[in-house]
């Protein structure tokens, strides 16, 4: 990618981030592209970023997949063999995800034996399917990406564990969750392209491996997909600015000012405001 494109992207991200006017960086990941209820986001107390179970699982799967390819990409993978890999850990693995899995991360993210077993089993099964799928797609040389987040001014784009596929041409891919919305997928690829451009010199393409669908959504890193990424960042920043405004309004005028911005959906089931919110989905409903 020419330097002028890279510089242009950097300048645009700097300008967008400047609007935040904050000393703390706004963290942007794939999950921030998911539609969410602004009222809930405004009302919930700001928490420091914490790695979720899904993040742990993806990190372990990514490590397992890379480790498997490093050992010769044997096509006859079986669950017990991946499990052996998991017990041993990839070469020299001493990451937070493996410590979490072994219950060695201390009190702050101590999970029960059963929770760890579930993540372990999910990771094994997902890694087995991902390895199978990558083999079908013709990938032969795969390693863990060492840089999957970039900071630009007040922004930090952090996309978690990823793989670098070194077959010609070199590309970078993430194990993705299934989504039905093609627009959201385009935005995710846009974010991935930004990280590839700014974090991994030489990545010609980015991809999202949707194991459940058996698809690799793949796009060449170019101005179009970078534009999608910038648009995605703009949306997230706008939403963050609006959230801050709403928070100030709610502090001054009470929760009622939030309802105008409430949107019913999957979050209602876990939202502490659902009892008071006039548009929340409640269960059981009286209407079908």
């Amino acid at each position, binding site marked *: 990618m020419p330097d002028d494109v890279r510089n242009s992207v950097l300048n645009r991200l700097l300008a967008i981030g400047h609007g935040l006017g904050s000393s703390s960086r706004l963290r942007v990941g794939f999950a921030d592209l998911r539609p969410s209820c602004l009222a809930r986001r405004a009302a919930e107390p700001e928490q420091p970023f914490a790695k979720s179970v899904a993040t742990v699982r993806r990190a372990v799967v990514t490590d397992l997949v890379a480790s498997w390819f490093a050992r010769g990409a044997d*096509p*006859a*993978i*079986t*669950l*017990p*063999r991946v*499990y052996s890999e998991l017990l041993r850990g990839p070469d020299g693995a001493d990451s937070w995800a493996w410590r979490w899995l072994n219950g060695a991360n201390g009190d702050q993210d101590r999970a*029960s*034996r*059963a*929770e760890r*077993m*579930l993540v*372990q*089993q*999910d990771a*094994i*099964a*997902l890694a*087995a*399917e991902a390895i*199978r799928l990558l*083999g*079908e797609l013709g990938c032969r040389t795969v390693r863990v990406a060492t840089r999957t987040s970039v900071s630009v001014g007040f922004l930090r784009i952090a996309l978690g564990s990823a793989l670098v596929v070194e077959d010609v041409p070199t590309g970078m891919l993430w194990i993705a969750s*299934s989504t*039905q*919305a*093609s*627009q959201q997928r385009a935005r995710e690829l846009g974010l991935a392209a930004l990280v590839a451009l700014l974090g991994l010199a030489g990545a010609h393409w980015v991809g999202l491996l*949707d*194991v*459940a*669908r*058996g698809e690799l959504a793949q796009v060449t890193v170019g101005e179009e997909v970078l534009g999608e990424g910038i648009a995605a960042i703009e949306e997230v920043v706008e939403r963050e600015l609006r959230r801050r405004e709403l928070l100030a309004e709610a502090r001054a005028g009470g929760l009622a000012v939030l309802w105008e911005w409430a949107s019913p959906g*999957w979050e209602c*089931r876990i939202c502490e405001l659902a009892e008071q919110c006039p548009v929340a*989905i409640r*269960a*059981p*409903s*009286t*209407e*079908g």
Partner: protein
Amino acid sequence: MTEQGALPALEVVALEDALARRPRPVPHELVVKLRRELVERARRLPGEESIRLRKDIVADLLACGRYGMAALRRELADRPGPATVLGSAVGMAVRSWFAHGQRAHERDDEELWLAAVRIDQDPDGLDDIDRRELAERRDRLVAQLRLSESWWPRTEVAVSVALNDRVGLAGRFDVAVGGPPTALPHHLIEIKSMVSLGEEASPDVWFYVVLGALRYVPPPASVVLLAPGVSAAEVRQLLIEPQSLRVAFGRVLDALEEVDQGLRGEPSERVGIRCARCPFRERCAAFAADERGDGA
């Protein structure tokens, strides 16, 4: 509309024989045609609501449109019953056995499986008999599943298929064996916790036929139901062939028809076993008619 009771019976076979069988090939054009019908039906659904069909939701929709719509919209407050919890525990036990292989794994026991179930369900509803039988049922199931590694068994295979940006089908196959890159036929295995396979287990199989056919090219050879049985595991099989494929796709088309009516605010109402836990029954004409004894 296909009635659940009218579904063809599944064949009773031994697992070894089931995995060796080769069904009549399904022409790719047939899958394309059936898929096109689903896509077209999905395209004509009113509104903008996201629709994600799973096996239980399709079964609910076909049983009663109103109940099925509530299930689809996650508006039912039902807590999982003992049968569901037992199913989760048995599934967990089988997954654990597969992951650990045939080596002895310290503390891979009922306590661990129930603790894993407790994360999103309440295993306290299980009676003592079910708890005592958990390990025995797993033993009977895995006695069948001691397959050669060449079958490449994998568990909890999540599958998702999009018909368009808002309508999709999703599910998890308990166990999948064979298929690329092995040279063996591809089978999907659904693990059941019940000791005996009754008709109520059959609808799941038909949904998996559709999911498997849409996700894999060529479609899997069959869907196998495996239950622990009373003294030995019980196996039933549905080969994925042109005729079974048409029946299975027909059921999903019918479910989409129910969704269509539900989205238009005119869900169908039918009396059945779901009435006992339905929050709408007090205002349901079909239920009232059934209570009066004049049929629905």
